[in-house]
């Protein structure tokens, strides 16, 4: 039995080390299902989440560009961040929905308190379009760091309204981003022709 147990523990260790737990989401999004079997790439993903209350959330997967991204977008809106806040953004950056002015306050909280905060979404209207700034900054940093543009994943709630989704897509089209990945749940494929 010993060799088997050895192997079992080896595998346990391997899977434990390789598993990356899904980062905590700031918003609950119930994605619709589709028959597409393409899996989301593991790295270089920018997630745009749209919940049913028309709120827009943004998230960066790569830890390498998070601090630089925060400084870039912060500088654009005249918001500066302390080193501790930049450090905290490593956890928050995976999914957040706060206007940049309120971001320092959110970063000052500890992770337990942060869960209780109701984030009101990133502004994306024509007067104050912070959303597209995040996308453009993250995209150019991704190009610089990994020499490849990031994948844009749109994670919409099944009950999210079409105008918000269309607005998000249009904004990105204006910045010449035309390839989108819509995150869905897997559904078994029906046989066509039945």
């Amino acid at each position, binding site marked *: 039995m010993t060799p088997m147990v050895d192997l079992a523990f080896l595998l346990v260790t391997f899977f434990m080390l390789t598993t990356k737990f899904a980062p905590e989401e700031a918003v609950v999004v119930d994605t619709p*299902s589709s028959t597409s079997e393409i899996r989301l790439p593991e790295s270089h993903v920018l997630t745009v989440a749209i919940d049913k209350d028309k709120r827009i959330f943004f998230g960066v997967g790569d830890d390498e560009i998070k601090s630089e991204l925060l400084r870039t977008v912060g500088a654009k809106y005249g918001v500066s961040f302390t080193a501790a806040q930049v450090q905290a953004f490593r956890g928050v950056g995976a999914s957040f929905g706060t206007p940049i002015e309120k971001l320092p306050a959110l970063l000052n909280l500890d992770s337990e308190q942060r869960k209780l905060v109701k984030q009101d979404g990133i502004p994306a209207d024509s007067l104050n379009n912070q959303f597209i700034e995040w996308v453009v900054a993250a995209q150019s940093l991704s190009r610089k760091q990994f020499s490849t543009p990031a994948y844009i994943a749109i994670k919409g709630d099944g009950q999210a309204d079409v105008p918000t989704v269309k607005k998000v897509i249009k904004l990105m089209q204006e910045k010449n981003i035309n390839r989108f990945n819509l995150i869905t749940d897997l559904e078994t494929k029906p046989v066509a022709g039945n």
Partner: protein
Amino acid sequence: MAEIQQNSGGGGKGGKKRAKKMSTKIDMTPMVDLAFLLLTFFMLTTTFSKPTVMQVTMPVKPKDETEKSEIKASNAFTVLLGENNKIYYYDGLLSTDTKPELKLSGYDANGIRKELLARKSNPNLVVLIKPDDKSNYKNMVDILDEMNITDQKKYALVDISNADVELIKSSGL
């Protein structure tokens, strides 16, 4: 503790011998059980945590109006996504002088999929998907999924026009 005291009282030799007889092997079964449980857990979570995606490529924004491509009415099939999970469709294009006949359909296997498959004979068919402002994101994903299921190559997400909204209203469906 009580036992040790007893042994020391009765004579050191006998107690020591009994202790030496104890097997050095321990029962590994619970540990192995746990190991395999963890193994199964990590194996399953790694494969299932990645969500699936549906790839959508939008056309590059034309620089001016002249670059926009026109489609023939005979090759057009318009699908309107309405509120309350309703689907409307019509053949051809809507213009001021021609009013195509609007029909109601649904998202189930016998609904819009049948209509799409029935039109597969036309290789130049372009499906125009127009989601109404009152439809939800699930409807949009569902109709894009139908395009994948029916293997429809040419389709486009288009903004709904006022004429289309009027057509839905006047049809009373």
